């Protein structure tokens, strides 16, 4: 299948799409951090004098902040610059800006830093060598504690035919967007203006207001083309620093990270340890107990979303009579945890699917039939007491089983096929607004979000607008605005863009068509069609060119404006099952089932993925080309998590592999073709029943590869990634 040409192909194939790294403002300065030299320590002295004395150099240290900023909400708990205690290596101590990057680096080198090193907690397992008891919530390294249970856990475990227990470990993985973080900040009169490569201009504005103590109306955030996000360009990062330097210097300031800094400072998935216990009776899962230790680096106490959200995914989409989950977010001397495409869900699916595959094998049951029998379907109750909505997971699993059977018929020695499923809660997330402007011949969709590459804005929203108005896509323009001019949206993340903004566009389109109907002296919604090259509104037997239905004022302002908004009502879970901490309800249930065929080198343990098929529960396909491309890309990214990607931290909190030669993402020769099948008809909350797609298809990948690897050679690997070394150890080659 050939994808439709992307609307941005022409710009991107001629170097005409400016990204954050390309921003170039006359007179701008170049910025750099003064990085903390240790992962934990007390800052005894910071001598900025020599740097300040350099010509053309602006320096901002912690003592300069009060003079530059207003009163701030998060002053104490999230300092912009280290005031006293250093909590991770390379944490910003001070900022410099200079007329060139070389001059900025020379200024950083001129700073004298005096630090008293303190003991470093780099490794989660050094905090809790044994599983913590329920009183560990008060431990100083614990940022969050979540605990939930339901049913007769002790009884089910006592009455079980078998109890199977395993421990899994997962690695730290980085988003690796090829474009490093970059922005340019300027102070324009009383406005703090920043132009930045971001997934969420409005999210950055909200962050900046609380970080800088500047009211939102004095802040303007404008997006750029984005060279990959994957969760890493969600909230603010460099923007407050660039603005501080712009304020201090009176000049525009460019702040961009080097790729090494991207790795060292990146907020991403950190390591975890997971304990799985399953009680089985009469061939059925009766009870599950799951414990999680999740490294959250320097995340703030009590602000950890990851643990309470992720832990539900460790029960997987499987029915159980009784369960208990308990998780700890553990602080270490690393940068804060941050979102990475379906945050921590691929790791959860790896654990759940590998464990249940193991349980079935131990029970002498067919692993796939065993899992199929326990899968949620629409109407099932989740462990947290939520009713499952329309869910295509089971039909996807059945189709995957058919594919796996045909692949298995042709296998040779050392080859194996595995199936893994997973799910994600997609939907419309936090709210979004849309503004349509109907001109005489064209429709404009005004957007604050920028296209980050997935196609969700340029292809997805164009497709929704075309469907909702009847206007052909080639007469629809997406026009970007900054946060001062564009309608609000919460961001391109959480697989929500087409869902939320699509629904908002649909609402705006209804208003637009009602207004046109009134102008045709009727009721209901007018249709829009192109007749002999002219855009025409029709209502029953009446019709008129759109140009004739616009008022003088509308023609002068570019067209008839209609607004729409979509803010979803939150779902609920059974709070009686919560013992401690915060759990989060699901929205749409989006299932993904993957089939992997691998070949394992019996001498080295090297795993090669040879064939791959993905079955995706999508509700309704909005744009087939970009939908297929999302699945293909997500599978490749998941193969990195599965096989090669692992950020390695030393005991003193230093990242060992801070470059793309050492941190290995999949290359062209390592990704097999992916057969993509969409399972439609299980409607989500998006336009026409669409479900979100950006994240779900990465989720089953490490699990599918691990299960296929076990099928191929017997190696049951309980750690990610499945490096040759780990497979070789499982095969007792090492």
């Amino acid at each position: 299948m050939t994808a439709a040409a992307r609307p941005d192909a022409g710009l991107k194939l001629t170097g005409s799409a400016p990204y954050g790294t390309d921003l170039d403002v006359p007179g701008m300065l170049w910025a750099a951090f003064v990085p903390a030299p240790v992962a934990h320590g007390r800052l005894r002295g910071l001598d900025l004098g020599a740097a300040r004395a350099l010509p053309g150099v602006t320096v901002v240290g912690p003592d300069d902040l009060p003079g530059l900023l207003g009163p701030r909400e998060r002053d104490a708990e999230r300092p912009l610059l280290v005031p006293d205690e250093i909590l991770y290596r390379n944490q910003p101590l001070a900022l410099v800006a200079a007329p060139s990057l070389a001059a900025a680096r020379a200024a950083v080198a001129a700073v004298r830093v005096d630090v008293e090193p303190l003991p470093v907690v780099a490794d989660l397992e050094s905090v809790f060598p044994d599983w913590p008891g329920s009183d560990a919530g008060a431990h100083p390294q614990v940022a969050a504690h979540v605990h939930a249970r339901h049913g007769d856990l002790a009884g089910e475990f006592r009455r079980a035919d078998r109890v199977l227990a395993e421990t899994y470990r997962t690695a730290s993985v980085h988003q690796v967007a090829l474009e490093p973080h970059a922005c340019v900040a300027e102070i324009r009169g009383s406005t703090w203006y920043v132009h930045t490569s971001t997934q969420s201009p409005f999210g950055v504005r909200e962050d900046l207001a609380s970080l800088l103590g500047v009211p939102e109306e004095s802040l303007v955030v404008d997006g750029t083309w984005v060279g990959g996000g994957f969760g890493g360009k969600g909230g603010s990062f460099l923007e407050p620093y660039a603005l501080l330097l712009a304020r201090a210097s009176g000049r525009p300031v460019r702040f961009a990270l080097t790729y090494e800094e991207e790795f060292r400072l990146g907020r991403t998935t950190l390591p975890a340890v997971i304990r799985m216990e399953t009680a089985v009776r009469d061939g059925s899962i009766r009870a599950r107990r799951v414990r999680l230790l999740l490294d959250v680096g320097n995340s703030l106490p009590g602000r950890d979303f990851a643990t309470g959200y992720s832990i539900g995914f460790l029960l997987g989409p499987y029915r159980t009579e009784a369960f208990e989950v308990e998780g700890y977010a553990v602080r270490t001397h690393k940068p804060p945890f941050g979102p990475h495409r379906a945050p921590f869900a691929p790791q959860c699916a790896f654990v759940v699917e590998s464990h249940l595959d193991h349980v079935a094998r131990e029970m002498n049951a067919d692993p796939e039939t065993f899992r199929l029998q326990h899968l949620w379907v629409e109407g099932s109750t989740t462990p947290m007491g939520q009713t499952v909505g329309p869910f295509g997971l089971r039909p996807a699993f059945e189709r995957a089983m058919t594919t796996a059977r045909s692949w298995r018929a042709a296998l040779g020695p050392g080859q194996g096929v595995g199936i893994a499923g997973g799910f994600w809660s997609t939907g419309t997330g936090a709210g979004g607004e849309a503004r349509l402007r109907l001109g005489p011949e064209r429709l404009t969709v005004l957007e604050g979000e920028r296209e980050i590459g997935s196609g969700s804005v340029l292809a997805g929203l164009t497709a929704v607008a075309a469907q909702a108005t009847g206007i052909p896509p080639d007469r629809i323009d997406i026009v970007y605005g900054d946060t001062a001019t564009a309608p609000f949206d919460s961001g391109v993340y959480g697989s929500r863009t087409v869902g939320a903004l699509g629904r908002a566009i649909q609402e705006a389109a209804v208003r637009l068509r009602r207004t046109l109907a009134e102008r045709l002296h009727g009721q209901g919604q007018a249709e829009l069609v192109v007749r002999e090259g002219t855009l025409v509104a029709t209502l029953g037997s009446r019709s008129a060119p759109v140009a004739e239905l616009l008022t003088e004022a509308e023609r002068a302002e570019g067209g008839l404006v209609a607004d729409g908004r979509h803010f979803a009502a939150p779902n609920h879970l059974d709070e009686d099952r919560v013992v401690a901490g915060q759990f989060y309800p699901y929205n749409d249930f989006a299932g993904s089932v993957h089939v992997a065929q691998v070949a394992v080198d019996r001498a080295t343990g090297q795993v090669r993925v040879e064939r791959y098929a993905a079955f995706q529960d999508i509700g309704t396909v909005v744009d087939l080309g970009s939908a297929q491309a999302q699945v293909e890309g997500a599978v490749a990214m998941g193969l990195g998590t599965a096989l090669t990607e692992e950020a390695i931290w030393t005991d003193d909190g230093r990242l060992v592999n801070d470059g793309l030669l050492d941190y290995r993402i999949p290359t062209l020769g390592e990704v097999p073709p992916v057969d993509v099948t969409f399972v439609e008809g299980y409607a989500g909350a998006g336009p026409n029943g669409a479900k979100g797609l950006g994240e779900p298809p990465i989720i089953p990948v490490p699990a599918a590869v691990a299960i296929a690897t076990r099928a191929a050679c017997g190696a049951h690997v309980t750690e990610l990634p499945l490096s040759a070394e780990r497979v070789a150890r499982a095969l007792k080659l090492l």
Partner: protein
Amino acid sequence: MTDAAVPLTVNGHAHSVRDVPGPERLLDTLRWRLGLKGTKEGCRSGACGACVVLVDGRATLSCLTLTHDVPGAQITTIEVGPEDAAVARVRAAFAQEGALQCGYCTPGFVLTLAGLLHERGRRAAREELLEAAGGNLCRCTGYAAIVRAVERLATEDR
């Protein structure tokens, strides 16, 4: 030789780039002195391939090339016009197959493949093209659409 002027012809236009420090990389000369930001800065260590340009027709990592090492060179960047037939062919194949998402790696892929087409007198086999592009990283597409674009390039030759 530091700080001397370096003559370069970029996309057919002659430049004499003055005051180039000895350690300056071709990537930075193109982007910040000549304003050609289409050449992308990724890892600056030769791993990602986002910065590939053609130097005298050969695909070259501009982040690992010193500007002073290529005086008088003919440089081709992603901004080149349709007169470069190899670049035009690769562009057409990428557009037809939708072989890009965020687009940050795209200039490097296009020039890497165009470089091979230049070297091979515009004919190259699928395997050669894939091997050439195998050193460029893409995080968005999973390479699937890029491989389809390469297959289009290889078959339209026959």
